Structure formats: structure tokens, C-alpha cells
């Protein structure tokens, strides 16, 4: 058992360090995309979860995982998708948040608490009323959302009112 555990720990370590294809400054583990690494019938099974339903990076991530693990000596690798529970930006680790901020991308606020008992309440003007997103460059709390979406599904666009620099924010979902 101990030997298997050591091998699994090594594999988990390799998988955890694979960078995200769209946000290469953070790893799959940092983003909370890597859900599990287990052994089944002599196969290494890596379970990942997509951030958004249409995330085009999921195929790249699966390829990168297999490639990295093969380089580390793990030949029989299966990558599985887990849909539930749905990914939340709360799964981004403290280390991941620091790396994002250092790269000029504001890390997400805590996600709104999902109320599964009833309809999702409509909040008008919510994108403007949300808690301020501090500028990742100069730290000023005075920033303005310029677009609710950005170059990838997981981000929104902001501009700092102090240093005037534009920056991206990881949407809290």
C-alpha cells in the first residue's frame, strides 16, 4: 500500500504542476481544476472539471496532463471529466490568487452563495454594485468594470481609476 501511495503522490505532484493553457502563470491545482488522482486496474486516473461549460481549454488540459505524466514515466493515464459539483472560483487556492495578482489579474471575490431552494434572484445593476475590485497593479480600490466579459469565459474587464491601467478580473461564480 505504501508503495502505491508513494507512486500516487508522485503522480499527483506532476499533475498538480501542469500549467493552465490559458492562464500559464497558475497550475491546474492552483485553479481547482484538478479534482483527483487515483489508480484503477493499473491505470492512473486523473479527474478534472471544466470551469465553464464551453471552456475550449479542457481538451488542451487533458493532452498536457497525459504528456507531462508520460514524461514522468506514467504510461497508462486516463483523464476523466467530473461535472458535479460544478467548479467555483472559490476553489482557486491562496497560492493561485497570489500568482494571478502578481501577473496583473485580480483574483475573485467569494462566489455568491447559491440558493438551490428557489429561483436565482435578479439583481439589477449588480455588476456595478459588487464589492470593489482593487487594482492588482497599484492597489487602489477605485476601479470600474468596463466589460462584464473578457478574452476568456472566466474573466471580466476592469480599469483602475487611479493608475488608469486596464486589467482583468476572474469572475466570481
Amino acid at each position, binding site marked *: 500500500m505504501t508503495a502505491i501511495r508513494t507512486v500516487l503522490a508522485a503522480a499527483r505532484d506532476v499533475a498538480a504542476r501542469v500549467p493552465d493553457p490559458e492562464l500559464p502563470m497558475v497550475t491546474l491545482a492552483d485553479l481547482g481544476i484538478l479534482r483527483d488522482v487515483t489508480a484503477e486496474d493499473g491505470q492512473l486516473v486523473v479527474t478534472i472539471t*471544466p470551469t465553464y461549460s464551453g471552456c475550449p481549454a479542457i481538451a*488542451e488540459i487533458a*493532452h498536457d496532463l497525459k504528456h507531462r505524466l508520460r514524461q514522468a514515466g506514467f504510461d497508462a493515464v486516463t483523464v476523466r471529466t*467530473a*461535472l458535479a459539483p460544478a467548479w467555483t472560483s472559490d476553489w482557486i487556492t491562496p497560492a493561485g490568487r497570489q500568482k494571478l495578482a502578481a501577473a496583473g489579474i485580480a483574483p475573485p471575490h467569494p462566489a455568491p452563495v447559491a440558493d438551490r431552494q428557489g*429561483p436565482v434572484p435578479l439583481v439589477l445593476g449588480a455588476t456595478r454594485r459588487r464589492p470593489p475590485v482593487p487594482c492588482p497593479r497599484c492597489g487602489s480600490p477605485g476601479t470600474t468594470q468596463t466589460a462584464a466579459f473578457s478574452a476568456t469565459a472566466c474573466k471580466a474587464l476592469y480599469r483602475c481609476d487611479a493608475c488608469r491601467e486596464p486589467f482583468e478580473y476572474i469572475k466570481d461564480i
Partner: protein
Amino acid sequence: MTDDEFTVYEGLAADDEDHRWAFGTGFTDPLEGVDTSVPDGVDSVALAAYCLMLGDDALVYSHRLQQWITRMPELEEETALANIALDLLGQARMLLARAGRAEGAGRGEDQLAFFRDENEFRNVRLAETVDGDFAELTGRLLIFSAWRLALFGQLTGSADPVLAAIAAKGVKELSYHREYAAEWVIRLGDGTALSHAKMQAALEVIWPAVDELFRADAVTAMLPGVAADPAMLRGEVDEVLRTVLAAAGLDRPDRPPMAAVAGKAGRDGVHTEAFGYLLAELQSVARAHPAATW
């Protein structure tokens, strides 16, 4: 090679089972590794038909939204629309894949998207209609996302765990889409006299297609505990629209519903004339090269 030198392009050059020819190609099954066995007591033929309905709504509407790309007023709206269309396409891929597995006839997402004819599509007609202007785009997006969010909210409790998982993921996306559309409808409705008039006119154009969203269908009736009764969604959608229209200073249109054809509508495979042109654009490349992979 050290970790720092690793790039996402490295995998392309590697001599292994990777068949991608460029970054972003090489689609994988969106339900790879997901347990897609149909729960006991659930009619798998009806489940396949139901997933096809919801998948077609997203596929067809996503395509309509994509047709707006390069025609939006600002770059920020381009990215917004592209992202919304991408979320819906992701939902469509999972739902079509789910439909194919439940059907058990070996049809995958591509087969279902590209090799079915017009009368085999089960989307509501609201999703297939061309938007005449930006006001129609935002109005239709508001109604579509408010309705789909209400539907997915119900499906998070579905007895089919795959459908429940797809819905739970979609709820987060659709809430964001609805919010985006609501803000535009209010901005236009509560804007200048011209924008107000155009927004009101847009709602008048869209309104006849709304009633169909709440129409009963034979498939849903066969899936108690799995599917959501469309009639049950009306209260939530009406409340959202009432709130947005009030904030925008717009009137709720009073228009008769779009006619069914011999009692049949989108869910029965009866579509509007514009739908054939949409499918031609969506399917022609795949049909010209039926063995191609990408």
C-alpha cells in the same frame, strides 16, 4: 526541459497519441469519464429526446449569437456575446452527447449537430429567429436566458444525475447572461426617445414567440422527476420580465402567440423559414467533408 520552459505548444510536436494539428483543435468527448448510465425507471428514449430539445435550443441560439460577431457596437460587447455563445455551445455539446448516449444508437454530438435535417431539430422557434437590430438581440437574450435559467434551476433536482450536473453548471452561466441582457434592455428602454422606441418595438416583434416556451410537450410528460414542466416556469420568467420592463419604463406587449402549424411547433420539428438558412450555414462544411475531423 525544466518546468519553466514548458509551453502549451510542446504537446503538438511530441510523438505520441496526440492528433491535434494546432492549438485549440482535437475535440474530446465532453462527457469523457462521466457515468452516463440511465437511472433505473427512466425511459431512455424519452431522456434522449429531452436532452436533444434542450441541446438544440442552445446550439441554434448560440449560432444566431455567433452571427452577430463583428457586427456589435463595441469590442466589449463582441467579447460578451462570444462568451455567451461559447457557454451555450458548451451546454449544447454536453446535452447532445448525453442524448446520443441515452439513445444508444452510436450517434455522437457531431452526428446530431451536423447530420440531422430541419424537421429533426427540436428547438423552440424563439431561438432560431433572426434579430432585426441590437434591441431585438438584447430583448431575445433576456427572454431566452431568463427562461433557460428558470428551466435549469428546476433541473438541478433532476433524477438524472448527468442532467442535474449540466444544469447546475449552466445556472451560474445563465444568471450572468440574464444580468447582462437585463442591463442592456434597461439602458435602451430608459435611454433616449429613439432607443426607447426601438426597444419597445423589439419586444413587440419577439413577443409572439414567448408563449411556445411554456407549451406542454409529449416528451416532458414521459419523464416525471427528470424533466421540468414548461408551464411551471412561467411565474418566474414573468416576474423577471415584469421587474426589468418596469425598471426600463417599457410596456409588456399584448400580442397573440405565433401560430402552430397543424398543432405543431418547434418541439415537434416545425420551424420557421429562416431556420433552413441557419442550418445550411451550420452544417454545410461538415456535410461536404463527412469524414473530416477537427
